[in-house]
C-alpha cells in the first residue's frame, strides 16, 4: 500500500542500544507491515526530540526519560514500545584505579565524563552520585561526547570515570584504558545501582499524533516487536550479520562481543516493565531541579496498548 513515509529519527543510528531500529529495516519488517519507514540519524538525542516536537518526524528512538523530562515542559510524548529494560550504559573507570572508582562514593572531587550535559548519561551519573550521597558540587561532569573523544579524554586523564555505551565500552576495555565500573546493561545490576528499574531505549511518539494515527502506530510497533522477538531467538553473530558493516568497521568480533554482553538489556516483547516508570521518575527526582514542583502524569508517558496487541498477533 502506497502511503506517505513514516519518518523515525534515531539519536545515533549506529549505537547498539538503538540497534532494533536499523535491524527492523534490514530484516524488512516494516515493508512486511506495508510501511514505508525512513530512518533519520542525528548525532544528538535532544536534537531528535526537538525534531519530533517540530513534527518533522513521527517517531524517535531515544531514552524513555525524555518523555518525563518533556512533560515537565508541557510537551506530551509517549513511549509506544520499549527496546530496552535497562539503560544499556556502562560506567567505565580508569583501569589503574578501577577498584576504588567502582564505588560512586569515591567520585568526590573527581571529573566524570558524560556524553553531553542534559543527556541520559548526565542524568544517570547524577542519579548514581546522588544515591551514593554525593551532592552536585562534590564532583564535576565533563561532556566529552562518545567515541574517540571519550577515549582520548580518559587517556589524557581529563576524566577518571565516565558513562558511555557500546561500542566505546568494548574499545576502552580492549585497549586497556578502562575497566567496567558499573554495568547498567542488565536489569538486575541497574536495580542494584539505582534502586529501581530504568528502562531506556524506546520508540516514542508525539501523543496527539499517535492518537490520531493509531493504525499506523500499531503497524510500527508490530514491526519492532517482531524485531525484538527475532533478536531474542538469534545469536549475536546472526544479529551482527544483518547490520551494515560500516557499523562495526571491520572489527566484527568486538561488535559481537558488545552485543553478547549487552543482550540482557533488550526487551523480549517490547513491554514497559511494571513499576518501571515510577522508578525512573523517582531517580530523576533525586537530582533534577527541572522536575521540582511539577506533577507528572506517568500514564501519559507510555502506553502498552500497541505492544499488547502486537504480541497477541505475532
Amino acid at each position, binding site marked *: 500500500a502506497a502511503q506517505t513515509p513514516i519518518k523515525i529519527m534515531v539519536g545515533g543510528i549506529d549505537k547498539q542500544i538503538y540497534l532494533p531500529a536499523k535491524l527492523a529495516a534490514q530484516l524488512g519488517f516494516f515493508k512486511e507491515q506495508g510501511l514505508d519507514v525512513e530512518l533519520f540519524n542525528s548525532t544528538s538525542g535532544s536534537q531528535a526530540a526537538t525534531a519530533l516536537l517540530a513534527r518533522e518526524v513521527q517517531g524517535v528512538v531515544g531514552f524513555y526519560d525524555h518523555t518525563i523530562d518533556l512533560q515537565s515542559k508541557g*510537551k506530551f510524548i509517549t513511549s509506544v514500545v520499549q527496546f530496552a529494560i535497562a539503560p544499556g550504559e556502562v560506567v567505565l573507570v580508569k583501569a589503574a584505579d578501577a577498584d576504588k572508582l567502582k564505588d560512586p562514593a569515591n567520585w568526590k572531587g573527581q571529573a566524570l565524563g558524560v556524553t553531553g550535559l542534559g*543527556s541520559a548519561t548526565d542524568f544517570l551519573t547524577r542519579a548514581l552520585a546522588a544515591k551514593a550521597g554525593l551532592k552536585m558540587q562534590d564532583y564535576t561532569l565533563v*561532556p566529552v*561526547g562518545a567515541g574517540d*573523544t571519550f577515549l582520548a579524554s580518559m587517556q589524557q586523564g581529563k576524566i577518571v570515570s565516565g558513562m558511555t555505551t557500546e561500542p566505546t565500552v568494548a574499545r576502552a576495555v580492549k585497549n586497556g584504558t578502562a575497566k567496567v565500573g558499573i554495568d547498567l546493561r542488565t536489569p538486575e545490576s541497574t536495580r542494584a545501582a539505582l534502586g529501581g528499574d530504568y528502562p531506556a531505549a524506546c520508540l516514542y511518539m508525539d501523543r496527539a499524533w499517535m492518537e490520531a494515527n493509531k493504525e499506523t502506530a500499531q503497524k510500527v510497533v508490530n514491526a519492532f516487536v517482531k524485531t525484538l522477538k527475532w533478536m531474542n531467538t538469534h545469536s549475536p553473530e546472526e544479529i551482527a550479520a544483518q547490520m551494515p558493516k560500516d557499523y562495526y568497521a571491520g572489527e566484527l568480533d568486538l561488535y559481537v562481543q558488545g552485543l553478547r554482553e549487552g543482550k540482557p538489556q533488550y526487551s523480549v516483547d517490547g513491554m514497559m516493565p511494571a513499576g518501571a516508570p515510577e522508578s525512573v521518575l523517582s531517580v530523576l527526582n533525586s537530582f533534577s531541579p527541572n522536575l521540582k514542583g511539577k506533577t507528572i502524569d506517568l500514564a501519559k508517558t507510555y502506553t502498552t496498548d500497541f505492544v499488547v496487541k502486537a504480541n497477541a498477533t505475532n
Partner: protein
Amino acid sequence: MTETTVTAPLVTDGRIETAVQRMRRHQRLVLALRLAVLVFLIGGWEFGVRLGVIDPFFFGQPSGIVTKLIDWTENGTSIGPLWKQIWVTIYEAGAGFLIGSAMGILCGIALGRNQLLSDVFSIYIKVANSIPRVVLGSIFIVALGLGAASKIALAVVMVFFVVFANAFQGVREADKNLIANARILGASNWQMTRAVVLPSALSWILASLHVSFGFALVGAIVGEFLGAREGMGLLIATAQGSFDSNGVFAAMIVIAIVALLAEWILTMIENRLLTWRPDTTVNE
C-alpha cells in the same frame, strides 16, 4: 580683476556649521532606525509568542530570555558564574582569532608573493578548507585534549581560510605601477612586502577580519559543544540538552554582545590604520 586682500578662511561659516549639524542629525536618525528595527524584531517575536504564532518551546520568548539573563547574572549558571563562561569563550575565540589571522596573513602574503609556492600549496589549502569543522573538532580534541587548546585550534581553522583568501588576493591586486616604482627606488623583497604589498592588501585583510571574529566565536563554541568543562558553548549545549530555548537564545545574545564589542575595537584599529585614505563614504 582688482586684487582684494586674502581674507583668512572662515571655517565657522554657516555651511560648515550645517554640515556638522547634518551629521549629528544623521547619527540620530541612524540610531532611531536601528532601535526601530530592534523593537520591531523583538516586539514581533514576543507578540508572535503571545498570539501563539511562534512556539516558545522552540524559539524562546524575549521576556523569558531576559529573565534567564537576569537569573544567570544574579545566580550564575548551572556550570558556574556567567562572566567566567564569557571569559573562557572570549579567551578561546580571541586567541584563535589572533593566531588564525596572523597565520592567514602570513600565508596569504607568502603565497601571494611567490608564484611557485602558490602553485604548489594553494590546492592543499583549498582541500583543507573543505574539511568539515565538526570533524576537525573531534580530531583536535583527540590530539590537543579537552582544554582551551582544542577550541583555539578550531577557532584558528575557522578564521584562517577567510583571512588567507583575502590576504592572498589583496597581495595580488597590489598596483603593478607601485610595485615597479618601489623596485626601482631600491626596495628589497622584504621592503617591498612591508612598504607596498602590505599597505595595499590592508583593506582586503581588514575586510576579512571583520567577519573573522564572528567565525572565531563560532569555532570556539563548536569546540565547546564537542567537549568542554566551561564556556558559552557548553552553556548552549546544556540549554539545548534540557530543551531550554530561552537559555539558548540568552547565551546567543551574550555572544552577540561580545562580537559587537570586538567589532567596535576592530573598527577603531582600522580607522587608525587607514588614515591615509580618502573618505570611503559614498558621496556621489
